[in-house]
């Protein structure tokens, strides 16, 4: 059974159907990169996996929990699904340390000492231990995104979702963020990444999914999708970005 199972997922905003029926699975420890032109629905798709977007039709099952089932405690389910945003969304009124400690403490997962130790460990891991007392406004974009990853990891999730994590960064900062993500992948984290970094996708992903017009058009290993794409739309997209 897959760690993430998506069955017949449809999503509409009023009359505008963004996702038109998506079926896929992600296995435990698998790293899946989602690529595709803008407006293809890939971000919406990712945001359905922790139900930041309401699901119009179909099912999203994470760790055997149907997210659209009214009996499911969506807050509990989300504790297990970390998310990293394009624009970091750090809490500007908290220090870096507090950003990371906040959720585990607030949700009763850890006491103050455990939360502090965890946060410091995670900061060391993303190379920002010396910024613990800084505020988000004092950090560079790359540093902010690394803190955001640490913040998501503090809840000790089984699954991590990345929504274009490097799109808002200056080019010289992309590397440091991708480096942290590579480490995570190597450690066996189940990850779904919406990205425009084709080099990263090719290097790190176990599978690459190409989306267009609200459908999954192509789904395969990086070699298959990048090396010998079958669909015309994939070919034309890859020609533009590679």
């Amino acid at each position, binding site marked *: 059974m897959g760690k993430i199972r998506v069955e017949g997922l449809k999503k509409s905003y009023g009359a505008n159907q963004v996702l038109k029926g998506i079926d896929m699975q992600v296995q435990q420890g698998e790293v899946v990169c989602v690529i595709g032109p803008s407006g293809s629905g890939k971000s919406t798709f990712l945001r359905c996996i922790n139900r930041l977007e309401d699901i119009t039709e179909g099912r999203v099952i994470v760790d055997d929990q149907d997210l659209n089932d009214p009996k499911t405690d969506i*807050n509990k389910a989300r*504790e297990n699904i970390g*998310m990293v*945003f394009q624009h970091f969304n750090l809490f500007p*009124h908290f220090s870096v340390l507090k950003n990371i400690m906040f959720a585990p403490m607030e949700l009763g997962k850890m006491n103050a000492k455990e939360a502090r130790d965890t946060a410091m460990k995670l900061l060391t891991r993303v190379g920002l231990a010396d910024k613990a007392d800084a505020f988000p406004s004092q950090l560079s974009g790359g540093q902010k995104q690394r803190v955001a990853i640490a913040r*998501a990891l503090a809840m000790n999730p089984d699954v991590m979702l990345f929504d274009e994590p490097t799109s808002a960064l200056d080019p010289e900062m992309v590397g440091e963020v991708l480096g942290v993500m590579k480490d995570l992948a190597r450690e066996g984290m189940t990850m779904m990444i919406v990205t425009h970094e084709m080099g990263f996708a090719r290097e790190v992903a176990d599978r690459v999914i190409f989306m267009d017009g609200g459908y999954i058009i192509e789904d395969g290993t990086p070699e298959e999708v990048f090396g010998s794409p079958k669909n015309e739309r994939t070919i034309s997209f890859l020609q533009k970005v590679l």
Partner: protein
Amino acid sequence: MKLSKVSLFTIALLLLMVTGLSGFAGGAAAEPGTGKTYVIGTDITFAPFEFQDVNGKYVGIDMDLMDAIAKDQNFKYEIKPLGFNAAVQALESNQVDGVIAGMSITDERKQKFDFSEPYFESGVVMAVGKNNDTVKSYDDLKGKKVAVKTGTEGYTFAQSIASKYGFTIVPFDDSSQMYEDVKTGNSVACFEDYPVLAYVAKQSNDLKIVTKKEAGASYGFAVGKGKNKELLEKFNTGLTNLRASGEYDRIKEKYLAEDAAGAATQSRSELILGSIQPLLIGLGKTLLYTIVSLFFAFILGLIFGFMKVGQNRFLRGVATVFVDLFRGIPLIVLALFIYFGIPQALGFTMPLFLAAILTLSLNAGAYVTEIIRGGIESIDRGQMEAARSLGLPYRKAMIKIVIPQAIRVMVPAFINQLVITLKDTSILSAIGLVELTQSGKIIIARTYESFTIWAEVAIMYLIVITILTKLSGYLEGRVRRG
């Protein structure tokens, strides 16, 4: 810890309200006697019938007469100086039991009120500025402006002859404003009952009477139609007794004789010194009403503000209606509606402080709702999403992540609202609330010193608002630094 601070603040406010309320019952003290205390509405500026003396006590023919009759008939009463128009409306809406305010007995008024026996024969005269030698009769008014006070016989008379003599009417709510308008030359003349103008002409030496008394109505004490029969009977019996005993003539003499006691003429420094205390009391009321109203406005704003940003469509609609309604009605209309309109329609008495607090709270509440909505919506959606993605419930995310950031955005707008509400309390003088502005009006009604008193009032507002703004600016800085 934080919670106890909030509850402490609430208790302090409630205490403030209770202690404040004891001071709300305005005017003269009740007389000894038994049974019910009658609430009598009157004008604030109608010398020699009612006006404040230097000590802030209401005196005048009406006041002395009421006092003497109450003693004679052994009943208790309380004077509410509301202003003439407000007093008449208050009687219509049963907010007061009776009105004694140099009120002419007319057929129109008899439709709504029951009048006592006439206690004073009056008649309208015209007065002009002291140095005006061109206007001597109604014929000289062609193309000119004439000041009158709304709701008076002078107004009705001026209206009846306006087209015949070709002059324009400039209406005022307040006698002293009417006199000022003539003194400054905006209007060439004013129409008012003879004893009133005679008294003013003598006191201020700025006006002179140029016409003979029109055959006029006489003054009566009024109660609501078919209501307070026993009060009316007591008044009539008392009046008869006073006339028989000669007390009535003594009271009249006291104010109308050539050497009558009036407001003593004061030097400017005496005037300022003497007016500071009543103005400070008015200022205290202004602050009290501002603080209490803003407290409730804040609660309303929190409730409706969160309804507006929430996900429930129905609640959002309710909040929108609330804001549109109370932001769309001018404060003065809201005040008149709440204080006079609603009680008249539903037949109950609404205390003045309640009407005032309600008016200010609802009005400011609508604005605070918008401040809170705007503040919350100004926070990037990503903040809520990031918090929710970590597993935080909506409420927790709102309280811990969104609101603390929104407050920083809201603080300047709150300070603004504080200043606006503080100034808006002055509008409530229209329903007779004796706050800073009304206190100023009352002193001017006695002294006719517009410049000095309005300058004092303006400076008081300025000082208080400057202090509050500086204090809030300091707080804002602290909030910003986190």
